[in-house]
């Protein structure tokens, strides 16, 4: 690990003796999951619980002329069959726009389609029955009369004035457009060598292993709705459900226990989930919805789906003079609610060229409606697109002037001593470490030796390639992401800590756990700051009745924002504990410290009073305390970054692979990542987050694609036909770190969750092109399937 600077001048709370910060400790509560004793929403059963199954449109675009459910209603076990029109009485429609994305438009979306369906998979009726099987049986007996309408599927054709308009009231199929023009691109390009390419990104999806699942339980006697849902943002779900069901927030509780994978898939609120909440209210009983895998493919948000034309200017000495992009992205028939489907395109505009010092940058991004499943934010929003375009262009520029890909990066990456600075797109960088990261990466992979090996093998007709991809990463988002646009998505997080009557610590946090280790990092921070062993810290999360209000876990904010709130809350509790300890011990707080679950003398470490004993006195014998003392053994703190809208961070990846030029198959041999996430709380958790992210990026690079036909039918909506990385194809992934803590917080942590996904596809694509260089073939499309590769090689 390379630390680029010391965290702070003074000894911080993080450097206390026995600190858990920076240590690999196993996550608490893992045994539950290891023994199959977790509690996922799909496991949950409640008394009187009914099951809902949705009848979904087989057409991408059609009018619903009539629905006949008479026969189905008489089927055994059926409780109710509800159409969109009937559900409208319980839940209001929504429009997924944000005011800071100027001009973004969308149409009102209903929980269940009313009159018209806009994608294959949109629900047209809900069948509620005593079991899922009974509901599915009944579903077979519903007949729907559809009048098929023209389906707009290709995003380029969608903008043609002759194309049919999906939502007539909106006038056209353009949901959003953003342009940016910084510096003088034309001037810069006129004196440079030019390289241009069309980058194509397949539509893919998250494929969380546990499908989306909800149990909604309206209790008419309490007038309260409890929503059990695997979500990344419980308070957001609470707010939205209340808003559209006409309830007060206090009438809605969201509980989220174990979640079987999320990756941004479960940070949204889907129409079928809204329908489930509403059905529970309508039918006055608990209702459970668990998507089956085919439904997941058709309704979980899809991601990416971009076509981006990119241009780069370069001088013979390697100086990059300008970047220019024109990006088109297809988002399905609605902008997703409440985060909107325009954020990714916006992010692409923000991030292209980001690692480089080039001041000339022009961009246009257009976001287009189509009759396909909705598309929205998935892990590393916009990053893989921006990184692939930027790094693809940089490699093309290097090839054009005959420069080594490493050398061109060295000459253009923003210098490590240039900070703070801003990008041409207006992003503020507090401190990045591109050069330190690249240097470390080259050491780890032994770049020169690999190049030599590549050359030797090439002579034997074995074609291996090296691909490098630098990237910047958005983490710790402030209100600038959603709040400024009017969305009720909290950017701050809160943590409450209290000392219980036996001297253990209870900690409630608004961040959530989906397996990345939120519980662990919270316990590590709180234990370290308080001087309490981790086993004595219990973390509660994922329950809007029992945690402070906050954003949850998305956009790599858990450690940086939730972690800082935990640190500040623990500091406040520590102060309270030392105050009361001083009163009991007739000392002063400054003379005392807490170490190993007990109060000790700060000077010599001599034990003074155990926390257990202190808590006993405070809770059970307050009569023995000096008069005027009311100890507060609980403290709450909230945090959000204010100075920088995002804690931008950075990293670099490298891929080493072999292309079989006969079959078009790519074999990944090794992958390296160097990443800078500031203060590392638990090295193992950070590394595993990055590895998991890399593999999701590798999936996009090589396998994953939602394949639609021209009528808007998703043709590979199952796990057998939609390929994802499996253990057999994945390489070992080596991870290194450069550490530049953010000064915005005492903890100094930045996020690491997007890093892997951000750069993996770009590194692979560059490596494939590197391998194919002797053939004069260049590919700027992912996934890099054998077909794509053989086509580029002219073999098919």
């Amino acid at each position: 690990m390379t630390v680029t600077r010391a965290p702070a001048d003074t000894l911080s709370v993080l450097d206390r003796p026995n600190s858990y910060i920076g240590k690999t400790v196993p996550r608490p509560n893992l045994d539950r999951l290891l023994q199959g004793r977790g509690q996922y929403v799909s496991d949950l059963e409640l008394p009187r619980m009914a099951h809902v199954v949705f009848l979904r449109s087989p057409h991408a675009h059609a009018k619903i002329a009539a629905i006949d459910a008479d026969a189905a209603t008489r089927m055994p076990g059926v409780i109710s069959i509800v159409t969109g029109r009937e559900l409208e009485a319980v839940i209001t429609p929504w429009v997924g726009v944000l005011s800071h994305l100027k001009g973004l438009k969308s149409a009102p979306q209903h929980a269940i389609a009313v009159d018209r369906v806009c994608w294959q998979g949109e629900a047209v009726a809900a069948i509620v029955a005593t079991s899922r099987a009974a509901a599915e049986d009944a579903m077979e007996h519903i007949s729907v009369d559809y009048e098929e309408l023209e389906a707009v599927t290709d995003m380029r054709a969608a903008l043609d004035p002759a194309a049919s308009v999906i939502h007539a009231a909106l006038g056209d199929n353009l949901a959003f457009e953003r342009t940016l023009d910084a510096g003088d691109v034309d001037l810069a390009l006129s004196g440079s060598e030019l390289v241009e390419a069309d980058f194509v990104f397949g539509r893919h999806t998250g494929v969380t292993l546990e499908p989306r699942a909800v149990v909604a339980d309206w209790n008419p006697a309490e007038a309260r709705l409890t929503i059990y849902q695997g979500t990344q943002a419980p308070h957001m779900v609470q707010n939205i459900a209340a808003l559209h069901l006409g309830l007060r927030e206090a009438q809605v509780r969201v509980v989220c226990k174990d979640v079987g994978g999320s990756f941004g898939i479960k940070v949204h609120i889907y129409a079928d989930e809204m329908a489930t909440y509403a059905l529970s209210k309508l039918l006055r009983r608990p209702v459970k919805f668990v998507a089956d895998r085919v439904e997941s493919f058709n309704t979980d948000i899809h991601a990416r789906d971009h076509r981006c034309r990119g241009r780069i200017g370069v001088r013979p000495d390697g100086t990059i003079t300008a970047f220019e992009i024109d990006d088109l992205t297809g988002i399905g028939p609605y902008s997703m609610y409440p985060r909107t489907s325009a954020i990714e395109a916006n992010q692409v505009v923000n991030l292209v060229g980001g690692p480089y010092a080039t001041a000339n940058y022009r961009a246009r991004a257009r976001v287009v409606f189509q009759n396909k499943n909705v598309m929205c934010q998935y892990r590393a929003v916009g990053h893989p697109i921006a990184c692939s375009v930027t790094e693809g262009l940089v490699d093309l520029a290097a090839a054009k002037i005959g420069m080594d890909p490493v050398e061109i990066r060295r000459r253009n990456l923003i210098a490590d001593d240039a900070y703070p600075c801003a990008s041409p797109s207006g992003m503020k960088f507090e401190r990045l470490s591109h050069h330190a990261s690249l240097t470390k990466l080259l050491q780890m992979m032994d770049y020169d030796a690999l190049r030599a090996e590549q050359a030797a093998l090439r002579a034997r007709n074995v074609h291996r390639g090296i691909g490098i991809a630098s990237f910047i990463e958005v983490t710790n988002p402030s209100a600038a992401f959603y709040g400024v646009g009017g969305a009720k998505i909290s950017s701050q997080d809160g943590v409450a800590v209290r000392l219980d009557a036996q001297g253990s610590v209870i900690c409630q946090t608004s961040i959530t756990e989906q397996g990345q280790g939120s519980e662990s990092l919270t316990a590590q921070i709180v234990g370290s700051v308080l001087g309490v062993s981790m086993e004595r810290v219990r973390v509660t999360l994922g329950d809007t009745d029992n945690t402070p209000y906050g954003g949850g876990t998305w956009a790599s904010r858990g450690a940086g924002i939730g972690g800082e709130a935990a640190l500040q809350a623990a500091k406040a509790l520590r102060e309270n504990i030392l105050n009361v300890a001083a009163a009991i011990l007739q000392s002063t707080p400054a003379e005392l410290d807490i170490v190993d679950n007990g109060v000790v003398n700060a000077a010599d470490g001599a034990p003074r009073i155990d926390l257990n004993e202190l808590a006993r006195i405070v809770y059970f014998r307050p009569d023995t305390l000096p008069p005027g003392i009311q100890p507060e053994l609980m403290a709450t703190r909230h945090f959000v970054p204010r100075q920088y809208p995002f804690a931008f961070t950075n990293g670099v990846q490298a891929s080493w692979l072999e292309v079989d030029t006969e079959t078009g198959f790519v074999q990944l041999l090794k992958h390296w990542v160097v990443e800078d996430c500031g203060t590392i709380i638990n090295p193992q958790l950070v590394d595993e987050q990055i590895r998991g992210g890399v593999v999701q990026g590798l999936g996009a690079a090589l396998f994953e694609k939602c394949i639609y036909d021209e009528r808007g039918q998703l043709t590979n909506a199952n796990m057998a036909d939609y390929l994802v990385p499996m253990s057999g194809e994945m390489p070992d992934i080596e991870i290194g770190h450069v550490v530049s803590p953010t000064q915005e917080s005492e903890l100094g942590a930045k996020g690491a969750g997007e890093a892997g996904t951000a750069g993996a596809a770009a590194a692979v694509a560059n490596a494939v092109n590197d391998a194919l260089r002797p053939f004069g073939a260049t590919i700027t499309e992912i996934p890099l399937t054998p077909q794509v590769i053989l086509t580029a090689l002219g073999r098919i």
Partner: protein
Amino acid sequence: MNAPVPVSLLVNGEPIDAFVLPRLNLADFLRENLKLTGTHVGCEHGVCGACTVRLDGEIVRSCLMLTVQAQGASVETIEGLSDSGEIADLQAAFRERNALQCGYCTPGMLITAQDLLKHVSVPDRRAIREHLSGNYCRCTGYQAIVDAVEATAKMRAERGV
């Protein structure tokens, strides 16, 4: 075909008698009838491996099997393998190595890994990756899982088990 039929089997050593619909798959039977929710369902079409259980000593995908096909058989689920202590060392290695994130694939992964270790005493990484390549993990990137299985194999070999 729609009337329940009797079925008798052993689940984690416990004799179970039940009436089930012929179409009920074993995964749903374990989860819904017996409340053994440790057996997870990821795809219901035999691809992801989350529903892996042991049937008369062999691993099977319980979503691809009908409950009536398990008539007279002995079924072991993650709960049974945990309580017997058979995979305690493997579970500890997973914990040490953070070889799980969301934990949804984990029961199937552990049962599949144990199956490999029963057949091959010290498999190399390639063999581990191959054997696990019918089990989908979306979170970890697999490397930690391979490490944990490899470590367990070595430890068992040292202990002579």
